[in-house]
């Protein structure tokens, strides 16, 4: 009611032309601050979810493309066969295959390094039936027939098998999909919670402004006129809350991106980078958060309009 007090005390100069400046729905009669806080929190959580989904999808996509550029040939020690000869033969077959850029056979030392985390250092490979690996890098843009390569290897080097990492890629895809669907579910929950909060706030505002609504109704205001004024007020509150919540989330993402760059090169930074790449939600992420702010503000306005219209339907 501060506006009212101002209007009483701030009398205009004599001769000043009167103006219609008061809003139809007065500011002080809506639980504005509480609603802005609720919308801000909802938008912040929704933006964090969106950012997390964008990061997970980007990281999964990076891992997928990284993994999809390579396949692995595994040559197992079988019976009396010469493991070295089988390995180089399998590598030769792969090298001659269309679409293969490079084949690198892991040396015995490299193989023992790979096993160190499980078996410890000082490993003597000759004492163990450890398979040998060859990493086959694919030419950029090529799509080799891995099934044919697998068949060739099986025919000519029976102890060799080809792993095209399909299972891992599929796993990555389903993880990315699950993250996306989870994000959508959280966003849907946030929107439902926002609609409910706004509905209660609008009902409160209508109850407080019942005289205003009744007078408007009885002097011939159409329901759309009354609803429009409530909608405008709630759109303002929704935008305010959305900008605060979404803006805070964007600042947080920017800060974490800055810190991840700052710590690049440190052990923790490298591990973080390996998991999430550059930890940047990118232009798409920022646009998605901006869209969310607009969406939540729009939902706030529409929810209030719907509530006002439903209330006005009960008026004769």
């Amino acid at each position, binding site marked *: 009611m501060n506006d*009212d007090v101002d209007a*009483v005390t701030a009398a205009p100069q004599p001769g000043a032309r009167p103006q219609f400046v008061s809003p139809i729905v007065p500011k002080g009669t809506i639980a504005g601050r509480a609603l802005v806080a609720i919308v801000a929190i909802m938008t912040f959580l929704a933006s964090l979810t969106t950012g997390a989904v964008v990061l997970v999808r980007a990281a999964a996509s990076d891992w997928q493309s990284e993994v999809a550029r390579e396949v692995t040939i595994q040559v197992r020690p079988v019976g009396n066969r010469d493991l070295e000869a089988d390995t180089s033969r399998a590598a030769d077959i792969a090298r001659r295959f269309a679409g293969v850029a490079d084949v690198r056979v892991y040396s015995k030392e490299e193989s023992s390094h790979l096993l160190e985390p499980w078996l410890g250092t000082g490993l003597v490979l000759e004492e163990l039936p450890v398979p040998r690996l060859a990493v086959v890098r694919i030419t950029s843009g090529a799509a080799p027939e891995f099934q044919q390569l697998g068949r060739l290897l099986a025919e000519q080097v029976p102890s060799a098998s080809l792993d095209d990492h399909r299972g891992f890629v599929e796993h990555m895809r389903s993880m990315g999909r699950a993250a996306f669907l989870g994000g959508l579910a959280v966003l849907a929950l946030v929107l439902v919670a926002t609609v409910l909060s706004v509905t209660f706030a609008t009902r409160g505002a209508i109850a407080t402004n019942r005289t205003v609504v009744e007078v408007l109704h009885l002097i011939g205001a159409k329901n759309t006129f009354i609803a429009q004024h409530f909608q405008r007020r709630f759109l303002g509150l929704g935008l305010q809350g959305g900008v605060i919540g979404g803006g805070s989330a964007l600042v947080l993402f920017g800060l974490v991106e800055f810190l991840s760059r700052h710590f690049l090169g440190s052990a923790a930074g490298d591990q973080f980078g390996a998991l999430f790449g550059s930890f940047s939600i990118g232009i798409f992420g920022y646009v998605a958060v901006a869209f969310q702010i607009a969406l939540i503000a729009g939902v706030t306005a529409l929810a209030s309009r719907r509530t006002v219209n439903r209330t006005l339907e009960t008026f004769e």
Partner: protein
Amino acid sequence: MVRFENVGLRYGLGPEVLRDLSFRIEPHSFQFLTGPSGAGKTSLMRLLFLALRPTRGLITLFGHDIATLNKDAMATLRRRIGVVFQDFRLIDHMTTYENVALPLRVVGQEEGSFRDEVVELLQWVGLGERMWALPPVLSGGEKQRAAIARAVIARPQLLLADEPTGNVDPSLAQRLLRLFVELNKSGTSIVIATHDIALMDQYDARRLVLHEGRIHVYE
């Protein structure tokens, strides 16, 4: 202009508060609606300004059967009726000027087109110096005049006033009556609901008397 045919009204499952009302309000006419307290004056006024629908009978307003009208059409009809409420119903957060200008804003008129007209009317009802004031700081008489100004600003064809002199002293009541008579002369049909015999005795007009929910018309 207004036609009631065998109109009855009850609230919920209660008894009928208005029974078999049949009467007309003609264009440019002036009438008092009177009767003892609880006779149903306010209920009849609410039927007239479309805040209630009858439980039976036919009401036509400006040639429209109100039973067939949708919400938007009802709103459009209400714009042709000015109402002075018994409790004024001024909007507290709006200035006197804004309260009076509200009916014109509601119909979408630009402020530039009505500002002078509103100021002129406020001066005519003696509120020229109070147009910046908010209703809580107005006296009873000032509120009454502001409510009347709001009711007539859009030049309604029918003006309904519910106990317009109930909260004012006799001299102001007389001035307000003169205001209604002037409005009637300019073409507005007037219905004044009152139980103030002295007020009715000051002007020779048709009387609609409500008694136990039934109406008796004295031309």
